[in-house]
């Protein structure tokens, strides 16, 4: 996925800002936490795909879903739910790989945008 296709932020920080109660340090901490979590999640999915571990794929999707919903990352809304419920009896390895790559691209892009948002907020 081309990063240039996302000139506008594809997330919404309203919920996080409300929860932060105006605390920039908390905002930065949560942004950093998301960046780490996004990287770890993408890596964990690829490991699970390599091992055909569909249960792990489902669990990883379920684990990060609340974060993605809380940040209103609408682009992955359906993909993450599909990954959360994939049927291990059908060979969907290729489809899973495509979806994981797509979600991975979005998460990487969101992480980059969040980092720049966080830096401008702290500057």
């Amino acid at each position, binding site marked *: 996925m081309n990063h240039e296709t996302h000139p506008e932020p594809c997330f919404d920080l309203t*919920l*996080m800002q*409300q*929860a*932060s*109660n105006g605390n920039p340090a*908390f905002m930065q*901490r*949560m942004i950093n*936490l*998301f960046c780490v*979590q996004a990287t770890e999640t993408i890596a964990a999915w690829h490991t699970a795909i390599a091992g055909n571990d569909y249960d792990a794929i489902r*669990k990883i999707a*379920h*684990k*990060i*879903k*609340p*974060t993605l*919903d*809380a940040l209103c990352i609408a682009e992955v809304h359906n993909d993450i739910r599909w990954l959360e419920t994939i049927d291990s009896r059908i060979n969907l390895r290729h489809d899973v790989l495509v979806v994981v790559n797509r979600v991975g691209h979005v998460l990487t892009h969101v992480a980059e945008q969040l980092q720049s948002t966080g830096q401008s907020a702290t500057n």
Partner: protein
Amino acid sequence: MNAKSPFKIFIVEDDPWYGQLLKYHLSLNPDYEVSLLTTGKDCLDQLSQKPDVVCIDYNLPDTTGDKLLTNLKSVCATLPVVVISGQEEIAVALNLLKLGAAEYIVKDEHTKDMLWNTVRQLRENATLRRELTELTALVETKFSFEKNIIGESPALKKTFALMQKAASTLINVSITGETGTGKEVVAKSIHFNSDRKKKPFVTVNMAAIPADLLESELFGHERGAFTGAVAQRIGKFEEANGGTIFLDEVADLDLNLQAKLLRVLQEREVVRVGGNQRVKLDVRVITATHKHLGEQVKQKQFREDLYYRVLGLPIELPPLRERGQDILLLAQHFVNEFAAINKIKSPQLRPEAKEKLMHYNYPGNVRELKAVVDLACVMGNGAEVTAHDICFSPAQADQEFTVLEKTMQQYSCDIIAFYLKKYNNNVVLVANKLDIGKSTIYNLLKRNEISLS
């Protein structure tokens, strides 16, 4: 949790970002101590920290919400558990609530606010439960014989002995005594020192409820039993089931209701007004009246059969004027009570104030003594209560000369002092007004039996 310790909350959530969000949000309340855990095992391992609330994600790496909920409940049945889940299936939510979850919250944009409100409510419930436990213990202490009824007079000791007998059995009790002698206090003491102390104590004042409402008040009513009976309502007898019902001013019950009360006491069951279902009763009945029930029976104002049914163990409370030194013990108790309530140092009762208290006959009994002492504490200078601060205001004004036990000489001094004050200490004028010699007044002043104000 006690009043000062923080309210401990466990959040069990494997999504670190989301878990931090919830933890931070709840931590905005400085009274909360929030711990973030990521697995069911961690949660069970840390239960020794005695959390006040546990909020669990439904899907955890090592278990599911229903299994963790069951485990938590098996360790501590009263621990409130809130389940937060992405699952929107009603069946899942219902199952969790059936297993004892305090609340089920779906993960969406409202989760943090829902969780905030839920935790606040659970904390309020916990506070109320704690206060209820403390108050129950306090009530039990408050109504112990020794702390609740003050006095050492032989008349009161006799009453104590009867109360002890009443408390150790289930016999009905009838209490008589003048107004203000503490009939309700005695009834409560008997209840809270009996095996029924954990059960309800229900008071009904027969004189305070209009006769046409009393029947439904006592026995309850079914929906539509009469105009205005829009819903079924249980009566005081059912409310007191398992405990004690205190029927105050029982002599004021009209004859028609006396027959119905007799039936309830005989059959030990009640039928609500407008209904036909019989409700079994296990209620101890304590009655009280300031009237002489035997006389009421003679005058056909009270049914004889009901009289014997409610008589049980009769306890006659002595009037305060027959309790001698108890007056001073009670007065000191009321002074201390006044000081505690008003957060002041207890003022000292001056000897002449004590003497004045002892020479009054208290038609309003203990209730009147309390009113007199409270007023004296207010009128006093804070350090001590003098005779001057003690003011009697009997309900019937013409009783003053009959209730104050003074000598003619003391009454004379009071009258002369009153006139001297009224006429600005003009001795000649007062002597003329009272048709007495000036020397009489001067002699009294000289002997300090009266003083110029």
